Every structure is written in C-alpha cells, then in structure tokens.
C-alpha cells in the first residue's frame, strides 16, 4: 500500500525557493527535453553574443576621422554615425537650419509625453496640442518671424517620421472610432458605408494606397489644382490606420455586455452620452493591447513613404550611405535607426502596459 505523500520525503512538496541551483534544476533541467533545449540555447548564445559584443563595442572604431581609418578596424565603424548623424536624423533640411526640426521634434515628443500623464487629461490639453502643432508648423516651414522658408520636400529624417505618425494616430483614432460605431449602427446606410470603407481599405496594402495617393490622385484633380505630396501621404496613412482601428474598436464594443447598454438606456442617457461615458471607456480599455500594436505598426509603416520620394528616417539613412567617401557602412546605419525605432516603439508598449494596469478597476460581474 502506497504511503501518504507526506510520509515519503521524495514525494513531499518541494519548497519553492531553493537558491540558484534549485531554480536552475526546476526551470532549466526539469526534463530531458528541457535539458536539450537549455544546452541548445546556451550554445547559440555562446556562438553569437561574444561576436556581437566584439563587433558592437570591443573592436569598434569610435573616433576615426576618415573612412579609411575606419575600414582598418575589425568592428563597427561608429565614426560613420558621428559623421553622418545629422543627415540621418534630419535628411536634406538646410544644414544650418537643422535646429528647427530638432526643436520641432522635441516639442512633439514633449506634448506626447504630457498627453500620457493623467494629470494633464483635461480640456486644456487640446489647447496645448493646438499650440504645439502651430509651433511645429512654423518651425518646419518658416517664412515668418525671420525664419527662412523651407519647402516640405526638403523635410526629412526623424522629425518627418514623428510628424507622419503623430498626425496619423491623432486623426486616425477618432475616425476609426466613428467607423466602428457606424459599423454597429442601426441605420442601414451608415452601416453599409462604414463596412464598404473598412473592407476596401483593409483589402489593399498601405504601399498601394500611398502609391495611389501620389500617382493616381493627381490624375483626377482638375488642372492647376495640386495637393501637397506630404499631405497626400499623410492622408493615405490616416485613412489606412483608421480602418484597422475601427475593426479593433469594434471588437472591444462587442465585448461589452448588453447589460451595460441597458443600464445606460434605463437612465435616459442619449446615444452619444451612452457611448462617451459608458461604452467607449470600457471598450477601449479592453482593446488597449491591439490598439497599441496598431500604433506601433503605424509608426514603423511610415517608412513606406519612401516609395513616393519622401525622406523619412529610413530613407535618409540610405541617403547617408550613398556618400562615396563613406561606402559600405550600411550595418552601422541600420543598427542606428533600428535603435531609434526601438526606443519609440518600446516606450509606447511600456506605456500601454502601465495604462492597462491603472485602468483596471477590478470588474467582477
């Protein structure tokens, strides 16, 4: 007859905390498969990490002044970034005016950070945004206050990426909300319009929308009328993201129990009051993770504007590579811009995680 577990030491429940050795045994070597996987991963890390560190830091050249010196080094040539960072960050914006896009980017980031903090969530925030957008426009275009005028075809690099994605999200989000509500509307015409729009836009890649906005749209406009190329790209990005946001928000709306609608109705709230106060706050909370994925994707997808000849961060990095003196440092350039993209995208996802946690009011129903 088998004894009770407690009578036999080998079957007694294991204490959870056993120091490093215990942790390794229970997490890394608990089964034959686990042992194989652990060894495999260790081997992979051993093969790649030292070489990577070597290239990134140990053998890298940080201080070379010419490309020739740099080529002598075994590792990365960070001197290339030092020499070209302004071209990568600001594109072909006039060199001596580049403090303007820098300031514009700082303003944009500052306003975005403010909007993320709950104590700024009040009507005055809209005012702050208007002021910031005006400041960005003045800085980038110039032409007033003694600032030289700069064509937007010369804008580029990080500020352009930030502008495209900030405006993209700022306009696509409300448009997406309206489309999601429209798709669930009782009014057949509105519903049909929203469905057609969403399905059409989701059915084509962003790159083809950009292409259409840049190549096809001018064919339909009357002669002499032209919409700015940057604006057209911006509109294409907004329209594209709105369709995805709409579908995500619709998922959130469907997750809200019918009782919430009835509770709001029974108080006599109007449709818009019900949506604004009861349904959307809960629905959006549910869809924060997929919404943030869309925002992150949008931020990175702005790099597709290169196909219509706009110099965003990715394209200006390519331009920097085209310099005949500094040939062959593409790895460095791409690692550099990858880091920039990563910093922004990672910040967005960390913020969304914190937001989710803070908005969790422990629903039990």
């Amino acid at each position, binding site marked *: 007859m088998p004894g009770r577990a407690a009578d036999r030491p080998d079957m007694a429940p294991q204490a959870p905390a056993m120091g490093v050795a215990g942790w390794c045994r229970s997490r890394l070597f608990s089964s034959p498969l686990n042992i194989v996987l652990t060894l495999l991963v260790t081997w992979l890390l051993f093969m790649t990490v030292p070489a990577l560190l070597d290239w990134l830091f140990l053998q890298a050249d940080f201080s070379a002044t010419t490309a020739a010196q740099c080529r002598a080094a075994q590792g990365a040539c960070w001197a290339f970034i030092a020499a070209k960072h302004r071209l990568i960050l600001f594109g072909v914006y006039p060199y001596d005016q580049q403090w303007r896009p820098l300031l514009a980017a700082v303003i944009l980031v500052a306003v975005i950070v403010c909007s993320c903090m709950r104590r700024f969530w009040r009507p005055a925030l809209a005012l702050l945004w208007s002021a910031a957008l005006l400041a960005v426009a003045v800085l980038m275009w110039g032409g007033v206050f003694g600032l030289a005028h700069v064509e937007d075809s010369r804008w580029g690099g990080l500020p352009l990426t930030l502008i495209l994605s900030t405006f993209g999200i700022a306009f696509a989000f409300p448009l997406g909300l309206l489309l999601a509500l429209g798709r669930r509307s009782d009014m057949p015409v509105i519903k049909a319009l929203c469905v057609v729009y969403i399905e059409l836009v989701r059915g084509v890649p962003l790159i083809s929308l950009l292409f259409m906005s840049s190549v096809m749209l001018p064919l339909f406009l009357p002669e002499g009328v032209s919409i700015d190329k940057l604006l057209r790209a911006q509109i294409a990005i907004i329209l594209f993201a709105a369709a995805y946001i709409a579908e995500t928000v619709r998922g959130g709306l469907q997750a809200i129990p019918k*009782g*919430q609608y*009835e*509770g*709001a*109705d*029974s*108080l*006599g*709230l*109007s449709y818009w*009051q019900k949506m604004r*106060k*009861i349904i959307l*706050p*809960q629905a959006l*909370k549910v869809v924060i993770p997929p919404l943030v994925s869309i925002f992150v994707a949008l931020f990175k997808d702005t790099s597709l504007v290169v196909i219509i000849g706009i110099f965003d961060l990715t394209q200006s990095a390519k331009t920097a590579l085209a310099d005949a003196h500094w040939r062959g440092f593409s790895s460095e350039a791409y690692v550099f811009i990858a880091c920039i993209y990563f910093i922004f995208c990672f910040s967005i996802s960390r913020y969304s995680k914190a937001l989710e946690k803070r*908005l969790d*009011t*422990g*629903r*039990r*129903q």
Partner: protein
Amino acid sequence: MPEAMIRLEDVNKWYGQFHVLRDINLTVAPGERIVVCGPSGSGKSTMIRCINRLEEHQSGHIFVDGMELTNDLKQVETVRRDVGMVFQHFNLFPHLTVLENLTLGPIWVLRQPRAQAEAAARRYLERVRIPDQADKYPGQLSGGQQQRVAIARSLCMNPKVMLFDEPTSALDPEMVKEVLDVMIGLAQESGMTMLCVTHEMGFARKVADRVIFMDQGEIVEQDAPDAFFDSPRTERARLFLSQILH
C-alpha cells in the same frame, strides 16, 4: 379616478415566430405596487422591459404618465427619465466609482450641478444602508451591496415609477434579505409606483397591492396577494404555486 401611471392596451410582441406577449392589458394607478410572477418564459420580464422600451412591442399601445412609447427617441428618453429600472445582474458601470455611478444620470440627463447630485447620491446611499462605500468600484462590493447601489442609482433620478426585474434572483441566498429590506422600506415610505418581477412571496404579501400571474405571454390572473396565494382561481396558477412553494 386619477390618471393611470402606466397603461398597456392590447400589447403584443413576437420574437420571430414566438409570441411572447399576447394581448396584454394592464393599468397601474399612481402609487400602486404590483408584483408580477409566473413560470420562466412567461413573458413577465419582457413586459416590464417594454415599459421603458428596452424591448419594443409590435402592436398595441403603452402609455407612461400619459406619454406614449413610440419610435420617437426623444419621447423614449423622456419616459426613461421618469422610469427607474433595477436589473437582475445590477448592470452597474464597472469603470466608475459608486458615487460616479449614482451621479452620472443626474448630472448628464437632469443637468444637475455636481455638488447637488453628489449630496443627493450620498443621501440615497444612506437610505440603502451603504453610505461608506461611495468611493469604491462596483467590483469591490458584494452582490447584495451592488444591487443596493443599483437601486440607489435609479432613485437618484427621482423616478415616478420603479421597475424591478428579478432583483434578487442573481444573489447568494444570504444577501437576498438585505435587498428585500431596502425594497420594502422603499415601498412603505415613498409611495412610489412599483412593478416588481419576483418570486419572493413574503415580499409580495408584505407590500404588493396586487399580484399579477402570467403564463405563456398572457396575464392569467390578478388579485390581492393574500387572495392569490391562498386561493388561486386558475389551475395554471395553482400548479405554479405548488411548484415554487413545494
């Protein structure tokens, strides 16, 4: 005789082929307290949900305080302002605190100043005996407490009519009494018109002026509570009572 508070005239409703309400005629006087009972699927919840148009009836007329419920949304909103509803599953708003749940309607629908709405909300919380829970979220309260908050939320709108849709049937047994006590207090002190779908016979005997028994979408029998429970006139009512009383 005073104008009826609620009047249903030949109301019919179908869910697809299923005839849920058949020729319902019902008049409720101001201040009258009515308990509606009947087997499940008899249409009792559907009937009271038609009174604030959470469900639409397909033929007949429904008047609340002289105003007819039609497709006119403005009119429906006006009626809903005067008709409070308490649901089986509370339907509190989980993202708002108890106090915010209570003041939402008064502030946005009745356009009361916030301070006035909050003062009234605290008074009603006192009345349903949970004054110290104002700043919690619904998810932090027990079922009985949530239902009392839901009652207070309806009362904050100063309704002329209160509808209760099986208010105690989702509660754990030990919480039923605290909710019923609040409802009894409300019935005895306020003189408000009440329609309550419930199987709580003790409650019905204590406060109801009239018990309505429904079966298969029809009002089969209506009588004073003691008369109905002690000597039901129809076979269907007798069968139903024998099932719920064992």
